[in-house]
């Protein structure tokens, strides 16, 4: 994991947060804030998808600010992989795709995973 990534969220189809992982020691959001962030982002993603004037609805991919960068990858099954990182980090989309590949292997093929 690159040094400058802060947090990874995995949000399921219904908008509930199913996984959080922090990679940096400072600025950690507490659990309730993480849940609120996940559900709020889920709703905004859905609304943004409807706002496109033309073409297929797609939702929010990146949110860039001065102090952070948020990248979201939505899978065809509705799961969102959201990564919070420092502003100058690039190639998060590829990273999130790799994470999705690992998720579909080690989570979905695990008989003891209850979704």
């Amino acid at each position, binding site marked *: 994991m690159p040094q400058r990534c802060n947090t990874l969220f995995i949000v399921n189809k219904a908008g509930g947060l199913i996984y959080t992982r922090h990679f940096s020691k400072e600025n950690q959001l507490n659990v309730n804030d993480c849940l609120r962030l996940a559900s709020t982002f889920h709703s905004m993603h859905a609304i943004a998808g409807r706002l496109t004037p033309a073409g297929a609805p797609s939702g929010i991919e990146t949110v860039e600010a001065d102090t952070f960068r948020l990248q979201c990858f939505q899978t065809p099954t509705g799961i969102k992989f959201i990564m919070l990182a420092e502003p100058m980090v690039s190639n998060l989309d590829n990273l999130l795709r790799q994470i999705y590949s690992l998720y579909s*292997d*080690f989570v979905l*093929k*695990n*008989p*003891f995973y209850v979704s």
Partner: protein
Amino acid sequence: LEMAATNQKGKAIVDRPVPRGKSEVSLSAFCFLFSEMVQYYQTRVNTTQELEKKLAGAGYGVGVRMLELVCFREKGSKRETRIVGMLSYIKDHIWKAMFGKAADALERSTEREDEYMIHEKEPLVNTYVSVPKDFGHLNCASFVAGAVHGILDSADFPARVTAHTVQFTNETRTTILVKFSQEVMERERRLG
């Protein structure tokens, strides 16, 4: 009298040639199937011991058929009658047919003369399985242990076969423990 089932062309299933057998199945397909099997048994048992027994039962049938198939395909080999020969055959040929590579090691227990162990660092069936803590020492390689049990029973080496998780300092390994019955040990002694 029941005739063998015939397909449309009138060829009975016992007349068709046995498939060559160099085909491979994708790991993903197998792991999904295995995962469903574990989940299926989980709803029908109450303890981890029972789950391991069910998985071993499922593997038993696979083992019986694997022995016949591998022996048939590998024309020209003699039937194994000694313990070490049989276990080496399992470790090499059966493992190669099932998992694509031989098992890691075969070891004889120093404490008891009727116990042997097949070591496998990461069994293929456990590739994507993470056992939660409240399941204790459950090892889904019990399926593989069941297959070995089926093979040994068919080859006339009655034994008790179980899968164990062995904890090392920084990793866990799987061991398949084979405990042969008295008659096998006596026969082995007679054969010298």
